């Protein structure tokens, strides 16, 4: 074979580069394939589920046991005005103004401080992270410390979060807060540690009137799917295109 030095170097270097990059490319492909197929969690396949949440505002009695249970289950600081879920009270006055409040996130209950004869209608609206299919909070994270799982839950990586609070600003629902104890952003996880073990989120468990429902949107027989089929539902701020997965029954037009 007649090979010039120049050709030898050319071919040689191509082989070396190819051999070196091959495993890297294969490794990346394998990782991609695993991400689609394999669940990172033992005895739970995150590709088999897609979680959804229904709030029936017509049932809520504003007792605040959900917000209380959430703080206890998830060690959310009690002495700070931060909540993963809370209940808002809307009172539409006869003059047309809507008064909205949520003293201590509803944990201590509500007291009537506006006379009944000045009120046209009044109701409670439980609020919680919407776990949007198109989450603005995940888009803005500069380090990849917040993400959507394959089963549709938006989580925060507390080890990796740098606490820059961009995500808190980006959430149009005010569902995120800064956790002073952890020094990171924090939010509702739909009790990921519970739902991946077949339990319901703590707030759903605590609700005495069934105003909060949680279930699998991939399971056609699940209660949430039946509600979505049967009831007239709405989501918060649909015009933003965030595609929330918390669906509301009886959402009034004054609700923001």
């Amino acid at each position, binding site marked *: 074979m007649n090979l010039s030095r120049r050709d030898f170097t050319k071919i040689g270097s191509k082989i070396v580069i190819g051999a070196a990059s091959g495993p890297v490319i294969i490794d990346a492909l394998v990782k991609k394939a695993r991400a689609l197929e394999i669940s990172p969690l033992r005895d739970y396949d995150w590709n088999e589920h897609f979680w959804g949440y229904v709030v029936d505002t017509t049932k809520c009695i504003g007792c605040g*046991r959900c917000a209380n249970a959430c703080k206890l289950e998830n060690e959310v600081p009690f002495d700070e005005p931060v909540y993963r879920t809370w209940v808002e009270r809307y009172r539409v006055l006869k003059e047309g103004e809507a008064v909205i409040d949520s003293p201590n996130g509803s944990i201590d209950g509500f007291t009537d401080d506006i006379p009944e004869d000045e009120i046209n209608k009044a109701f*409670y609206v439980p609020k919680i992270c919407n776990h949007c299919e198109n989450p603005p909070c995940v888009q803005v994270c500069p380090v990849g410390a917040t993400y959507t799982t394959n089963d549709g839950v938006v989580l925060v990586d507390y080890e990796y979060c740098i606490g820059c609070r961009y995500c808190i600003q980006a959430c149009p629902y005010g569902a995120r807060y800064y956790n002073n104890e952890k020094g990171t952003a924090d939010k509702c996880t739909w009790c990921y540690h519970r739902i991946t073990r077949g339990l319901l989120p703590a707030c759903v468990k605590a609700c005495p009137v069934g105003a909060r429902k949680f279930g699998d949107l991939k399971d056609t027989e699940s209660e949430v799917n039946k509600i979505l089929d049967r009831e007239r539902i709405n989501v918060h701020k649909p015009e933003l295109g965030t595609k929330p997965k918390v669906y509301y029954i009886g959402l009034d037009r004054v609700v923001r």
Partner: protein
Amino acid sequence: MQPHLKRAFTLLAIIIIAFIFVRSLAVPGSFGEYGWYRGDSVNELRSQDIEYAGSRTCGDVGCHNTLYSIWNQSRHKTVNCETCHGPSEKHASNIRIMPEPADDSRDFCGLCHYNRVARPDGFPQVDPETHGQNLRCAYCHNPHKPWFV
């Protein structure tokens, strides 16, 4: 190749290698496994402790099964044990750890039952000023079976 180009290429190669080296140290192993995040963090979040055991656990045979069946047929069957008694998973897995005693004050029942305008009309509510002569609610109602029916 001209020497000044050679120097530039060598420098570039060193920079690239240094970048790859620093990146491999800085980026956690499981980053990018499932998406643009640390794959291990999903398991870390899942390993959080459970606090609420659920009413059915309280009603296990040999535990509060009598109380459970009374409660389960009462108007309070939608109010879970731990909504009044507080999270009790630690108690359920080790009965030597007692849960906090339930709040038996009037105001606690009142969180759900005091008259409030914003509550749905059908929900049973009482006037905190006049109902029950300011006695503890449990004096007349059994919290586990608030009514005799």
